[in-house]
């Protein structure tokens, strides 16, 4: 989160991608949420030294990016920004796990490097899955799907409120923060005192806004529930989407396809070298 404006711009952009109209966009949000959950759990269930078997899982993000016509560069940039944070703990692995696991020619690779690479690969896969889920579904629909999958109603309503006022409050915070930066001549922070009164003012403003909003909603007959357009149902396309991806994930989980390809290719070259 470099600047508040930049972060919110990214946020909005990601949410707006969900306005697309492709076969993936049209699917019921529940199917997409479930497939992404299965995807994440499957990827994460690999062993700590597993590397090659995870690579085919990129099939899912690649397929969704193409089928849903998402900007691949934007998604990749968003993912690339986050991976270092996930890898921060994995980077200690090479220090502590020095047992040699494999040889690449004369170079010995320790288990620590393998598991570190494995963590980075997992991070790339899981983060991509979460980002494309929002990009093809949209936040409101994800919340709705979660509610229909059993999330408690107050949390769902709270999430929708939050999403609605996030932009308003982030704008307020960005204005206040910029005003402070201008007065501080480029210093990013200004100590805890000014921060506290700034945050306090933002808090009171938000609180009063919440009360006004709620009164206005009550005046218009708000009964405590959001009425959402719920046109989509869980039909045959959703079922086949869910089952086919889940099936594919299971196949990829239990067979190491890259290793198989590699063996076939190296065996072919080897045979070519030995036989003539």
């Amino acid at each position, binding site marked *: 989160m470099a600047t508040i404006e930049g972060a919110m711009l990214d946020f909005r952009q990601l949410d707006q991608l969900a306005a697309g109209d492709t076969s993936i966009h049209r699917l019921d949000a529940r199917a997409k949420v479930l497939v992404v959950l299965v995807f994440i759990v499957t990827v994460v269930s690999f062993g700590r030294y597993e590397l090659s078997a995870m690579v085919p899982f990129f099939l899912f993000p690649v397929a969704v990016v193409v089928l849903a016509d998402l900007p691949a560069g934007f998604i990749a940039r968003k993912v690339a920004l986050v991976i270092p944070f996930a890898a921060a703990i994995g980077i200690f*692995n090479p220090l502590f796990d020095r047992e040699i696991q494999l040889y690449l020619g004369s170079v010995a690779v320790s288990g620590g490097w393998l598991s570190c690479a494995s963590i980075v690969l997992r991070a790339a896969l899981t983060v991509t899955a979460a980002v494309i889920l929002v990009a093809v579904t949209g936040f409101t629909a994800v919340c709705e799907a979660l509610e229909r999958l059993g999330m408690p109603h107050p949390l769902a309503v709270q999430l929708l*409120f939050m999403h609605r006022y996030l932009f308003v409050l982030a704008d307020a*915070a960005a204005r206040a923060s910029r005003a402070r930066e201008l007065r501080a001549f480029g210093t990013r922070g200004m100590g805890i005192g000014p921060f506290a009164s700034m945050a306090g003012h*933002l808090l009171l403003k938000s609180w009063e806004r919440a009360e006004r909003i709620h009164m206005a909603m009550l005046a218009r007959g708000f009964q405590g529930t959001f009425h959402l357009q719920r046109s989509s149902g869980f039909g045959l396309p959703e079922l086949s989407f869910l089952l086919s991806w889940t099936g594919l994930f299971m196949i990829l989980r239990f067979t190491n396809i890259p290793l198989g390809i590699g063996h076939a290719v190296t065996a072919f070259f080897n045979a070519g070298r030995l036989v003539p």
Partner: protein
Amino acid sequence: MHMADALVSPAVGGVMWAVSAGAVAYSSAQLRTDTDERRIPLMGVMGAFLFAAQMINFSIPGTGSSGHLGGGLLLAILLGPHAALLAITGVLIVQALFFADGGLLALGCNIFNMGVIPAFLVYPLVYKKLAGQRPAGTRLSFAVIVSAVLTLQLGPFAVVLETLFSGLSALPFSTFLLLMQPVHLAIGLVEGVVTAAIVSFVYLARPELMHAGLPSAAPVAYPLRNLVVGFLCAAILTGGVVSLIASKDPDGLEWAITRVAGTAELKAPDNRWHTWLAGLQETASFLPDYAFKHPAVAEPQSPASRAAETAGTSLAGIVGVMITLLLLMLGGALLKRVRATA
């Protein structure tokens, strides 16, 4: 302090999901019975506030670096634990989905570390005791700072345990602990000072808001159940630590956890599942006759042939990965072209 999916195993993620889902469901049920209807919109807007406030940095005195507010404790003080947990959960869901801070599987861990701990362990058991009935002044600040430090010690401790049980990081327990706890002691102190400053600001400006979190009708709003849950969590954590100190053997650790948590039925199929998967993985991918094995080498146990085997396997793995990636990129590009022309 966000945990990423990449560092969580399905077992740990699933257990923490269950724990956090229970806490969220309990809080939701409590709020449904709440007569004060302003709560839910207020929670939404407060979630948005916390989100916005986390984006504003403040400088940390004497270090030249800047930090931002965590806010779990602040919301618990202002909204009460149930509403605060839902607001924090909302913030975490948005962060997981839009900013990839944490992830969907790690969401349970993150809700527990940053929501359940401040709202259900620290707020009722420490803050309320220290602050008393009508908190104000130095006593209020003291209570806030102590609670924030405690929150930011328990949270990272939970992160350490969750990472350790997931088994993806090779960091030894004590090293990881020494890495996390002192850093978070400083962060907790700063968070405490900031939270205390905001709370006193609100107290001066709108003192009546400060009691929104205090249930007015029922003075004892924390039934025995909360205490029992808290002690259960503490017992699980202590069990984990004690067994870790007692033995480095991960099996002993698992044994202790299942004993303390009493979830032997839950763990057992998981272990079988894991070993079964491992076995399957082995038979599927490390068939010895796939590797470069020279027929001349009769003794398969000799180090040279083992090295040759692993070399063959790893070479095959790398070649295969390259080809798979190439195929994926080609396939994607091709599909894109087909879609564009269609």
